C-alpha cells in the first residue's frame, strides 16, 4: 500500500493557519457575544486539540489506539485535583505537571503495548481506559466517585481570569492554533516522517532502518501529553468533571471526527471537530421539533456516520469528496 505523503505542503499549511485564524476572529463578530454560539466554538477548539493529538498516532501512525479517552480523563482529573482538593496550585502549573504525568504513564505503558499488534493492541489500550474509569469511579475518597469533582477554578494569567465564554474563547483558540502549528512541525520533522513510514507499512519501515518501536513510543508519549492538555482545558472550562470522560464514547467521537477529515492531515482534526459539533447541536435542535427524544438519535447518527464513511468513503469523507471533483493523478491510500 502506498502512502501519499503528508498530503499538504508547507505553503498550504500556512494559508490554512491564516484562514483558520481569520475564521476564528470573525466567528464572535458574526454571532456577537451570544454565550451558546461561543460555547460551541469553545468545544470545537477543545475537541480540535484532542483530535489533532489522537490523529498523530491514529491517522499518521495508523495504530488502532483506543486509550485516548483514558489520557483525556487523566488530564482533566489531574488538573482538577491539583487545583481543588489536594493542593491549590496555579492551574497552569497543574496543567504542565499533569501533562508530564500523562507522558510518564504513556512511556511506562508503551513498554508493554508496542509489543502487541492488532486485536491485542486494541484490547490492551481499551483496557487502559477502563482501568482509568474504574479507578476514578472506585476511589471516591479522592475523586468523588461517580458524582465527580465540581467547582474547578477557571484559568487565569496574572489575576486576569478567563471565566466568561468570550475570554475563554480567545484563550482556547490561541492554544488550539499553537498546538496545530506544533503538530505541523512535528509531522514534517524526522519523528513525523518515521511515523508516517510506519503507518504506511511497518515492515518496510523497519527494513529501511527506522527503529519502529522507538518512534511509536515517542509518538505515543507526544499524543498522550497533548491529549492530557486537552483534558485539562476541558476541566477548567466546564469546571465540573465525572469519570464518564474516560468512557469509550469520547474515543469513538474523536475517531468519527478524524474519519470525516480523512485523518491524513492535522486539518482533519479541526474540520472534523467543527462538523461533528455543529451536526450534533443541529441534531439536538431538530429532533425535539419532530416530537422525539434526541438522545438515541445521536447514537444512531454517530454509528451510521462511521458505517457509511468506512463502507463508501474509505479514504475519509472530505478526501473522497475532493477526489470525486478533482481526481488525483496517482492513486491514494485508504485512510483506514
Amino acid at each position, binding site marked *: 500500500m502506498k502512502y501519499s505523503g503528508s498530503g499538504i505542503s508547507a505553503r498550504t499549511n500556512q494559508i490554512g493557519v491564516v484562514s483558520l485564524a481569520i475564521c476564528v476572529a470573525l466567528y464572535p463578530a458574526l454571532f456577537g457575544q451570544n454565550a451558546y454560539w461561543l460555547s460551541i466554538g469553545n468545544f470545537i477548539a477543545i475537541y480540535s486539540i484532542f483530535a489533532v493529538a489522537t490523529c498523530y498516532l491514529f491517522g499518521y501512525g495508523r495504530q488502532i489506539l483506543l486509550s485516548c479517552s483514558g489520557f483525556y480523563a487523566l488530564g482533566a482529573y489531574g488538573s482538577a485535583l491539583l487545583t481543588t482538593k489536594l493542593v491549590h496550585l496555579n492551574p497552569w502549573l497543574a496543567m504542565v505537571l499533569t501533562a508530564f504525568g500523562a507522558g510518564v504513564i504513556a512511556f511506562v505503558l508503551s513498554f508493554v503495548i508496542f509489543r502487541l499488534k492488532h486485536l*491485542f493492541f486494541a*484490547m490492551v489500550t481499551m*483496557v487502559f481506559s477502563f482501568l482509568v474509569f474504574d479507578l476514578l*469511579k472506585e476511589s471516591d475518597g479522592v475523586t468523588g466517585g461517580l458524582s465527580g469533582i465540581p467547582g474547578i477554578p477557571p484559568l487565569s494569567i496574572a489575576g486576569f481570569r478567563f471565566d466568561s465564554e468570550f475570554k475563554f474563547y480567545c484563550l482556547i483558540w490561541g492554544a488550539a492554533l499553537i498546538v496545530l502549528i506544533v503538530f505541523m512541525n512535528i509531522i514534517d520533522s524526522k519523528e513525523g516522517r518515521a511515523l508516517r513510514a510506519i503507518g504506511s507499512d511497518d515492515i518496510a519501515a523497519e527494513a529501511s532502518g527506522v527503529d519502529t518501536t522507538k518512534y511509536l513510543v515517542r509518538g505515543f508519549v507526544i499524543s498522550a501529553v497533548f491529549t492530557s492538555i486537552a483534558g485539562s482545558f476541558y476541566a477548567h472550562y466546564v469546571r465540573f468533571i465525572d469519570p464518564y470522560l474516560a468512557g469509550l464514547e469520547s474515543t469513538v467521537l474523536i475517531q468519527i471526527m478524524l474519519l470525516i477529515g480523512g485523518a491524513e492531515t492535522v486539518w482533519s482534526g479541526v474540520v472534523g471537530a467543527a462538523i461533528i459539533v455543529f451536526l450534533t447541536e443541529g441534531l439536538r435542535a431538530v429532533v425535539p421539533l419532530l416530537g422525539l427524544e434526541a438522545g*438515541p438519535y445521536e447514537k*444512531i447518527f454517530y*454509528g451510521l456516520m462511521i458505517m457509511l464513511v468506512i*463502507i463508501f468513503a474509505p479514504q475519509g469523507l472530505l478526501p473522497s469528496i475532493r477526489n470525486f471533483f478533482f481526481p488525483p493523478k496517482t492513486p491514494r491510500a485508504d485512510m*483506514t
Partner: protein
Amino acid sequence: MELIAQLLILGISSGAIYALLAAGLVIVFKVTNIVNFMHGQWVVIGALTYWSLMERMGTLAAIVTAALITGFLGALVYRFILHWVAEARFMPQVLLTIALSFFIDGVALVIWGKEPRSAPPFSSGESIALFDTVISQQSLWILGTMIVALVSVWFFLNYTLIGKAMHACAANRMAARVVGIKPDHMAMISFALSALFGAIAGITYLPLQAMSYSSGFGYTLKAFVAAIIGGMGSFGGAVLGGFALGIAESLGAGLLSSGYKETIGFLAMTAIIFYRVMRMSAK
C-alpha cells in the same frame, strides 16, 4: 467454605453465559477473521425480543422465536454491512463493528426504552439445596441450555458438510474457494450461529440479570476477555476461558470488592496476553 462453594456455583452459572458468548466470538473470528466488537449486542437483542414476546406467546415459543430472529439478524448484518469489509484490513473492520454497536444501541433505545428489563425464571420452583449451598433452578437451566447448545454446535461443525466447509474456510480461505466453497456464505452462517448463541445466552440470563439497551458492550468485553484467556482460536479454549472468567469474577467480587469485578477480568486477560507474547518472542 460455604461462601466459597456458593461463589463457585454463581461463577459457574455466569461462566456458562461467558462461555457461550466466547464460543460465538471465536467461531466468527476463525471463519471470517473479523473481530466482532458488537457481539454483546446480540445478547441484548435476543433478551429484549424475548421480553417483548414473552407475554404474548408463552415462554417456549418466545424463546425459539427470539433466538431465530436474532440469528437471522446476524446473517443480515453480515450480508449487508460487514460483507463490505470482509477483505479489508484490521482497522476498518474494528471501527465498523464498534460503529454498528453504537447504531444498534441507539435503535434498541428507541424500541425498548431506557428501563432495564427482567423476566421471571423459566420454571418456578424452590431452589435446590446441595450440601451447604443453594442452586437456583435458573442456573440449572443455563447450564443445561449451554451444554445442549455447545454439544450440538460441536457436532454441526465436525460432522456436517457445512461445518466442515467452515473449518476449511478457517484454515485457508483461498484453498476453500478453489474447491468450491463460498467463503461469504460460510461467513454468513458463522454470523448467524454466533448471533444465535448470543441470543440464547441473553435469554437464559435475563431472569438472573436485568438488561437494558446499553448492556451490550459489557457482554462484548466479557466475550473478548473469555476468548483471549482461552487463546482466541479454539472452541474448547473459549469455553474454558468463559468458565475461568466467571469463577474468577465471582470469587473476586465476593472475597475482595465488588467494585473491581470487571477489573479482575481485564487484568487476567492482560496477563494472559503478555504471557503469550513473551512465550512467542522467547521461541
